[in-house]
């Protein structure tokens, strides 16, 4: 029987619906393209701006922490030390912000057309991955400038940054869910992310953290992203400790839970907007 039925009824169960997303993958692609094209078209210097903002921030960090405070990086040049960590952090935090806002920013679409809502955070993540890719190119260029020629280890950056984006996606889905009802969350996010940045060894080395906190400190999944990207680029030694596996587990649970709560909330987002 080739006839298809669509049944509309009160929502009960929760389904993540990857199958539906796959069926509408053309839409996912279009939304991704739309974000990229729209951004780079309205600003001729789109790519330049993309790089300029982190470079400016990097310059400031270098002046304050590298030049004035003379943070001990263990012999690595400070700009590269900071930038290799910043790249992953930026990917994570920007993905988190985009995913968190994906329902609200697209309420115009959501309230007028039906499509699997999960496409929105996924398109947002894809866009951040695209921007992240540009940053990685800059990062590799910078490391070559400082004499760290890429080795085979550089391949690790691909799964590593995908992991950073996945963390952003997972946490972002939770926040998107909360933000449907509590819009006040948005201004708080920047503050929390900034605190998170200082809780991760980005502008300073992890060795500065007092010994008794060092173990707990490593439960932060971004700690591992940061340390492993330094390892991949500059061969900075890293010990995989049990907290790494714990944090990996947390991330998996967060992402899965995020997908579930998102699937539940997407059904009411039109009604409570």
């Amino acid at each position: 029987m080739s006839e298809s039925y669509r049944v509309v009824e009160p929502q009960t169960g929760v389904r993540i619906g990857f199958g539906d997303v796959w069926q509408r993958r053309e839409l996912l692609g279009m939304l991704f393209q739309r974000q990229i094209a729209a951004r780079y078209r309205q600003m001729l210097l789109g790519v330049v701006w993309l790089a300029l903002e982190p470079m400016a921030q990097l310059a400031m960090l270098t002046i304050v922490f590298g030049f004035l405070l003379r943070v001990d990086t263990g012999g690595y040049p400070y700009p590269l030390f900071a930038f290799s960590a910043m790249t992953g952090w930026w990917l994570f935090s920007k993905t988190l912000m985009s995913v968190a806002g994906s329902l609200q920013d697209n309420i115009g679409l959501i309230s007028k057309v039906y499509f699997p809502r999960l496409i929105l955070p996924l398109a947002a993540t894809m866009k951040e991955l695209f921007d992240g890719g540009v940053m990685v190119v800059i990062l590799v260029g910078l490391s070559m400038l400082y004499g760290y020629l890429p080795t085979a280890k550089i391949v690790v950056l691909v799964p590593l940054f995908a992991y950073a984006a996945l963390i952003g996606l997972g946490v972002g889905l939770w926040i998107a869910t909360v933000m449907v009802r509590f819009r006040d969350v948005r201004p708080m996010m920047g503050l929390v992310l900034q605190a998170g940045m200082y809780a991760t060894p980005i502008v300073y080395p992890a060795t500065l953290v007092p010994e008794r906190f060092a173990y707990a400190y490593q439960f932060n999944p971004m700690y591992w992203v940061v340390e492993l990207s330094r390892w991949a680029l500059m061969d900075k030694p890293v010990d995989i400790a049990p907290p790494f596996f714990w944090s990996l587990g947390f991330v998996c649970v967060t992402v899965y839970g995020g997908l579930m709560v998102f699937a539940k909330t997407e059904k009411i987002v039109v009604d409570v907007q």
Partner: protein
Amino acid sequence: MSSNASPTVRVDAIGKRYLMPHAVHGTGTGGRIMAHLKEFLPFLSHQEDDYFWALRDVSFEVKPGEVMGILGRNGSGKSTLLKILSGVTAPTTGKAMLRGRVGSLLEVGTGFHPDLTGRENVFMSGVLLGIGKREIAAKLDEIIDFSGIEPFIDVPVKRYSSGMYVRLAYAVASMLHADVLILDEVMAVGDAAFREKSQRNIERLAGEGRTVLFVSHNARAVRNLCHTGIILDKGQCTFQGSAADAVITYLQKIHHYQPSQEELTATRWNLDDAPRLHDGGERVLTSVSLHAADGTPAREFHTGEPMRVRIGFHRCTLRQPYFAVLIHNEYAERVATINSSHFAPDLDAHGNGVAECLIEDLRLGEGSYYMMLDFGQYGGGRGLMTSADCVPNAATFDVSLGGYLGGIGLDAFQGAAHRARWSVVTSTSAAG
């Protein structure tokens, strides 16, 4: 469209409820805090009066090839119903079943991005509506042609005029070849020629056996395009039937045309308590009665025959008064304006009395009509008229075709049948 075909859309007791705690606990700080808490923490709201039912117990069926119009005032639940059927939001109760591919167009230009060109937006919007990229590419020329904006197709849509924007957006939507098409107020866009084109498009779809659900405020569009209609009022379905009946019922409701049995046979109406167009003014008009040429009371007239309208008035103090008889058809469309200032500028009406308007030959087609009476002062400016008392629904009457048109059909929606003399000025022989 066979009547025993199984329905493509079956809506079964659909209801939709929204949380609206503000409405209940509007007063006092405590109440307001509670209302906010309830909005954020829905489990606190279990009282029935915290909810608002936007739709309640709506059921209907639509058959293949049927175009169904949905009528209702703002806030009657039309948009909520379409949102539920298109899957944007879920119903609270009930169930609906739609057979085949469902396409919905709740807004013209959904997904358009101002920075993208017309061509890019065609793809964006099309894919969003569920049309495949390949299908869009194949129909791109047709879409551009339909929109009529070919020279601008590679220009960002932010530089379009609003008319161009809307035409392009609608052109994309018209390619939506779904088995069930859900349209919300989309006929209101574009100029007359474009609207005509869109109407043809809907007719074609219905002809191909597709089902169309259609919301519009344009009664004429619903009457012309739809086969059946339903009326929603405060979330409930109050009427189901043919589109023509639905439109008339709806318009009678919104214009308060609900003649009682008594009024349907009346020939004289007392206007002392009749609703006025503008409240608060002096009530000068007291009564109206309709008469045949010889002065006998009547309410049935023939096209091309005379009609006497007698208008009672009192306490008239205006220097240059005018009376006007305004005739509307059942769609509340004006079909005639008969103003005393056109023919009798110096009508002498002071104090109390009766004014008579003799319409020498009534040029209306067959149907029921509503008469509006207006009274006021004219002059003071060039052709300036100031209404003093206006009764929107003063009288009703019926017209049937007399000998005037030789019995050839003309209905209330076709305008006036002007008296004319016909002759052939030049003609050549067909054989020549």
